[in-house]
């Protein structure tokens, strides 16, 4: 059957913890291996192979997690989901088929075994990164952080809290490798992506921008000047989408490795809040 996206019903029955909510399997390599398989079955669809983050779910190899600190927190989150996010509760209501308590502890043990400690000192300077973000690097022309910046690209306040340094660097150096995911409609399997689009209206006006939302008959576009256009496809002279990101590729000539580390440090500092 089609199945199992970690989506579930509020975990019913008694949530069995280890003694005092401690992970009874902590540090057990066998449990971690079993947890790896359970992770693939139940979590990898969103959190990616190796827990390194997928399109939907954050990278769980980060030692610092936004919603959980202790193993006990993590048990609660896996059992009950996170309200207001795509993280579902364990159970059988949606696509999931439910994990036992032991399997949840195995998964936690596995995630702990995969965590990569962030360097004690960030490689870059967050203060300098902020200057670059809002200044010479021109990030804020398109990206907003904490309410300041542009609207054309994805909002980035939380990105430093859910993505690894490597993922952020890759998306700056190779922005088209994996397009950012935008609007999520609760009924759709996958959200819209930040695809680039060029259209020509009936009166010959050419508009370039990114798609905000689209169906077979209409499209919403934000142009480079942040103007939003709500258009019926049937009335357009042409409609062309590409999977090239509207974001320029930042080579080392434009942004040095050092400068990029500064920006990562800035985003990480904001994301940790």
């Amino acid at each position, binding site marked *: *059957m089609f199945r199992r996206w970690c989506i579930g019903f509020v975990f019913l029955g008694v949530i069995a913890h280890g003694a005092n909510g401690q992970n009874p399997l902590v540090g057990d390599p066998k449990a971690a291996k079993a947890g790896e398989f359970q992770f693939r079955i139940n979590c990898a669809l969103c959190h990616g192979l190796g827990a390194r983050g997928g399109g939907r779910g954050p990278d769980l190899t980060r030692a610092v997690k936004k919603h959980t600190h202790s193993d006990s927190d993590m048990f609660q989150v896996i059992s009950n989901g996170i309200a207001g996010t795509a993280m579902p509760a364990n159970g059988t209501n949606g696509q999931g088929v439910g994990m036992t308590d032991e399997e949840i502890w195995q998964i936690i043990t596995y995630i702990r075994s995969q965590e990569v400690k962030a360097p004690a000192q960030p490689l870059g300077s967050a203060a300098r990164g902020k200057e670059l973000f809002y200044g010479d690097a021109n990030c804020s022309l398109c990206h907003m952080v904490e309410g300041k910046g542009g609207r054309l690209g994805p909002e980035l306040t939380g990105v430093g809290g859910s993505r690894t340094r490597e993922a952020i660097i890759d998306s700056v150096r190779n922005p088209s490798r994996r397009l950012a995911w935008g609007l999520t409609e609760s009924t759709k399997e996958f959200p819209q992506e930040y695809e680039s689009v060029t259209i020509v209206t009936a009166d010959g006006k050419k508009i370039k921008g990114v798609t905000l939302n689209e169906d*077979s008959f209409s499209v919403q576009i934000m142009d480079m000047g942040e103007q939003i256009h709500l258009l019926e496809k049937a009335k357009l002279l042409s409609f062309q989408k590409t999977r090239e990101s509207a974001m320029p590729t930042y080579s080392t000539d434009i942004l040095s490795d050092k400068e990029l580390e500064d920006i990562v440090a800035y985003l990480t500092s904001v994301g940790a809040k």
Partner: protein
Amino acid sequence: MTERGCVDSSEKSGQPWRSGASAPRRGALLGEAFRPCLALGLKPVDLFCALRGAEAPLFHGEGQCAAAILAIWLVVSFLAAPLHAQVTFERLVNSAKEPQNWMTYSGDYSGKRFSGLDQVNITNARTLVAKWVYQTGATGKLETTPLVVDGILYATAQDDRAFALDARTGRPIWMYQRQIPNDIRPCCGHVNRGLAILGDKVFMGTLDAHVMALDAKTGAMVWDVAAADYRTGFSFTVAPLAVKGLIVIGVSGGEYGVRGFIDAYDADTGARKWRFYTVPGPGEPGHDTWEGDSWKVGGAPAWNTGTYDPVTNQIFWPTGNPAPSNRGEGRAGDNLYSNSLLALNADTGKLNWYFQFTRHDEHDWDATQIPVMIEAGGKQLIAQANRNGYFYVLDRTTGKLISANAYGKTTWSDKKDAEGRPIANKEASPTLEGHTVCPGALGTTNWYPPTFDPQTKLLYVTARDQCDIFSTAPQPYEAGHAFYGSAYFPSEEAEPYRGFLKAIDPATGEIKWKFEHTSPTWSGVLSTAGGLVFSGDAEGNFIAFDAEAGKPLWHFQMGGAVYAAPMAFAVEGKEYVAIAAGSALYAFGLQ
């Protein structure tokens, strides 16, 4: 009644009042109670007409008469109840003669999901408007296909609800809500795909693996039997099929290592008449296609509605994945009758023939798609657009393969066996590290029903191009616990998933046209004699296409994704097209 001189309102919609043998009973009852009315000088015929709600000369009764009429109306309504919805087996066999009704999951026994109605057609489809919307009030996917019989619509909703509506207005007549246990084990949501109707009852399979009959007039439970223990992973999500006096139903649970079966129950009593285990036991043919004891947890569920050939009295029922679904280790062999089409004798459940689409499946490619009975070149055929990406045409008298052609993106097979069946490449097997195979686990298509239009002779199916990374994840069997032994997830390559409506010529396997949706959809497809094909999309649109050209002629934004298939019916001479989206059922008609 009509013969007594009053005009029956149901007759106007083409449904004669079938009074039959019970008329004298009503007459006898009326005799006594009518005394006060007769004293007022009213003739029995007037009262009779009034009681039936039919057009009749007006009368002016005193209070006593009015009370008598009210009392008798209640009695007569009750007595008359079973008469309205009498759906005989003969009516089901001859469903094409009453295109205003939609009496089985696929609209007829052949699985064509074709409506003979043509009032809505290519010239006027652009004037379709929503006529009513019924909100189920439940959450999760609404996968139902309604039935409509003589102006009454019967459908199911999430969480094992069933309901009846006035098909003209969408106003509810009754609603049944099953009290499902908290620890049921459906793999994929609290879904149900519909009812069967026979006689004066509707029939539903439940998430806790019961089969039940409800009174079509009131929704009251008539019988309820447990088919299996839900705690070990069994459930029902399928719309049953009524054949002769039997209610045929297939079980879900391929994600839990159940041993699949197809059951037939006596429609009147609920007594089980036969069971066909889709995994053969010791000593039975096919048992040797399972390694060791793996057959005991072999899966092969039967969770989509089959079709029926009255000429040969055969039921064609498709089966799903072997368990564990994506890991073949431990169940060496072909794993019969997983991912197969079974031809069963309708009376006995005995196997006449089978055809296995995917042998020893390791990608969760259930073959549970509707097996559509078609005729071509003088041959009796079955066409199935399979989840594994191939479109199969079989001779339905023998089960022999005639053709198998890819209709979507596939990478798992480079060769065919002597019969012409695509054979899996060794490299397609899931690995510990995981690697990419197309189609992905959701398949090129899935349970959502296709349609075959006898006018265009094309089969229309919702298709998806998506590849997944398949990896193994060894897991022991534990009763009632998920048993995948594997995992899949989206390919990390920056390859968007694509969704289509495709028109396939079964004679050649050629794709005559395709319409690309913005994203893949879970909508089924309907074709009608009006030259139209209807389908829905993930963005919430319901779309009417020109069946020949594939051009959208009309659409309506329903505000919720479609996980259901459309159907058509008519009441009082007006055609409606209905589909579920979000948590609501929509009916459309001409402006």
